[in-house]
């Protein structure tokens, strides 16, 4: 049959004969299996159809394109295409000073600017040997965990939009998110483009009123989550659409460098907050939610559970927040010239491991400025997760990975 997809496993072509170098693919979603969904002698067996979804498609969360080869409704091959938002962020970083890159990092993952700031500040602190003050570390945890809640609110809302529930769950989540953004606006001056972290601390000190407001909001947040879960988690349609859809095996997830909730949904307990223990995270008592099946439902539940854990962390952080300077008075920000060397700093962002790799040659600009974007690398397994599923499921699977094109394309 000429129509039958050849064994065009995405790329066994160039691999050497040595079998130990076979590229790991998900056993659930190997291309061969996807093709055998239908009998070849099916009288209705038609041609394969190549569909280009995107770049202007509401379900792709931005300018993202999926070139899907379909056998009827079933995906037998899927190639993600991106770069439409590419602005060479890394070159910009090499052409500006260390401090001037800070506002640009907000624009990577624009739904979670604070954690980008934090990762960058951490990397530069490693590179230049600076240490943030204790109060600043607590404030970073506070804003970082609030950012995680904001991001997960966004993700869960959009996930339901992708499932076809037009806007109601999204707007409930956005209503809650907006309260957090108002707080961020009060603290940093903007809703999303914070430019808040500095090397050695944070830019402004939160006032006691701000902290009281934030604490009140956090204390009330589990009530919203309960309502939201009552609204959605037990919904039969949602269960039917997400359980068993887009399975990812832990072996593949580890090998493909998947991080964040997508990895933990497969049952791998790897959270950089626990593993690296950066900042003051070792002082907090919290658990890392771990999934079981690695399917879309688990990925959804990861986010809900992580929000609950974030609330726990935040309550402890508000309780223990020490007094002191918000930024090291000797911190060097403007005109920073780190010693020649390199550093890789990473944190657990809401989407996964966000890291910055910096090489300094002793001048005011980084010699090399590299962003390790979590959602870019998490896209590696999109094809493996989608094979054998229908187009509508591909939309949901993409939604559950949680990509932001500002970060994927940089």
């Amino acid at each position, binding site marked *: 049959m000429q129509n039958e997809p050849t064994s065009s496993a*995405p*790329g*066994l*072509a*160039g*691999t*050497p004969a040595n079998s*130990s*170098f*076979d*590229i*790991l693919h998900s056993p659930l979603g190997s291309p061969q299996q996807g093709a055998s969904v239908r009998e070849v002698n099916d009288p209705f067996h038609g041609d394969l159809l190549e569909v280009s979804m995107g770049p202007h498609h509401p379900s792709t969360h931005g300018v993202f394109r999926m070139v899907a080869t379909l056998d009827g409704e079933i995906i037998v091959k899927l190639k993600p295409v*991106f*770069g439409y938002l*590419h602005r*060479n962020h*890394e*070159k910009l970083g090499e052409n500006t000073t260390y401090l001037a890159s800070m506002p640009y990092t907000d624009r990577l993952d624009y739904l979670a600017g604070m954690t980008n700031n934090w990762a960058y500040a951490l990397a530069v602190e*490693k*590179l*230049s*040997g600076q240490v943030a003050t204790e109060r600043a570390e607590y404030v970073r945890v506070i804003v970082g965990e609030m950012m995680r809640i904001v991001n997960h609110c966004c993700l869960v809302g959009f996930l339901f939009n992708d499932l076809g529930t037009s806007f109601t769950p999204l707007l409930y989540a956005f209503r809650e998110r907006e309260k957090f953004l108002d707080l961020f606006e009060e603290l940093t001056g903007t809703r999303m483009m914070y430019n808040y972290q500095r090397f050695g601390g944070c830019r402004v000190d939160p006032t006691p009123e701000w902290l009281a407001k934030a604490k009140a909001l956090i204390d009330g947040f589990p009530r919203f989550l309960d309502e939201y879960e009552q609204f959605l988690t037990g919904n039969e349609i949602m269960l039917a659409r997400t359980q068993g859809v887009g399975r990812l095996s832990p072996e*593949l997830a*580890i*090998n*493909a*460098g*998947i*991080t964040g909730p997508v990895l933990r949904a497969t049952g*791998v307990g*790897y959270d950089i907050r626990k*593993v690296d223990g950066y900042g003051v995270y070792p002082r907090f008592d919290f658990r890392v939610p771990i999934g079981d099946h690695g399917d879309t439902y688990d990925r959804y539940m990861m986010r809900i559970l992580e929000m609950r854990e974030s609330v726990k962390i935040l309550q402890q952080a508000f309780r223990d927040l020490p007094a002191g300077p918000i930024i090291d008075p000797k911190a060097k920000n403007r005109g920073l010239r*780190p*010693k*020649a*060397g*390199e*550093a*890789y700093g*990473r944190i657990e962002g809401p989407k996964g*491991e966000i*890291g910055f*790799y910096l*090489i*300094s040659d002793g001048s005011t600009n980084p*010699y*090399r400025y*590299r962003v*390790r974007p979590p959602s*870019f*690398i998490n*896209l*590696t*397994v999109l094809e493996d997760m989608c094979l054998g599923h229908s187009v509508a499921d591909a939309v949901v699977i993409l939604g559950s990975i949680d990509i932001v094109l500002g970060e994927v*394309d*940089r």
Partner: protein
Amino acid sequence: MQSIEQIRDLIVARFPGAEVTVIQNPGPAAQHSLLLGHAQARDIALFLRDEPSLKLDFCSNATGVDWPEKEIVETTKVKVAQPDGTEKLVEQKTKRLQPGYLEAVYHLYSMALKHGPVVIRLRTGNRTDAVSLPSLTPVWRSCEFQEREIFDLFGIVFEGHPDLRRILMWDEFKDHPMRKDYVEPDDYEWEPTPHDAVLTKAKGHYPAPGSTANAEGGM
């Protein structure tokens, strides 16, 4: 976790004669790295992944670095015999061309043993024709997109990569934008800016902009 020297010794014990060099990182981060030779790079990577005491199963970050040719001027003081029989110290400048190369850097962690990072580097022969490196995608699939990105932005050709195409730039694009000597194409479009450099560039493309309000600033 073992120190970088111990890891090197492990590798050398397993692969006698393998080219492994420790590159020291002088910065405060002290993340030292291992420079691997091409020939056994993939085997060594597989060994790092599967060796029970290392289990570096998670390649977090893969990226390229461009190191262009550098002219290094060394000044040495040489005694030169003068015609009158005395000796005089004369500074002698020797110019040495340090060859350029492209570098791929991988940051490895272990999810099983929760340690890291171990940094490994691969270097190309030069920046023009010997730009290929063995691909590590067969060892860690997380390199699949990242190596494509390195190929796209730096121009390193990864041998054994399953699907080496441009990823961020479009397929017809010619150059490699992250190289240090990249010159952006001359496709400037006039924009409202009061900056000299941009306006000078604009003059080559457009008649002087009809801005009166801006005339003062644009001089």
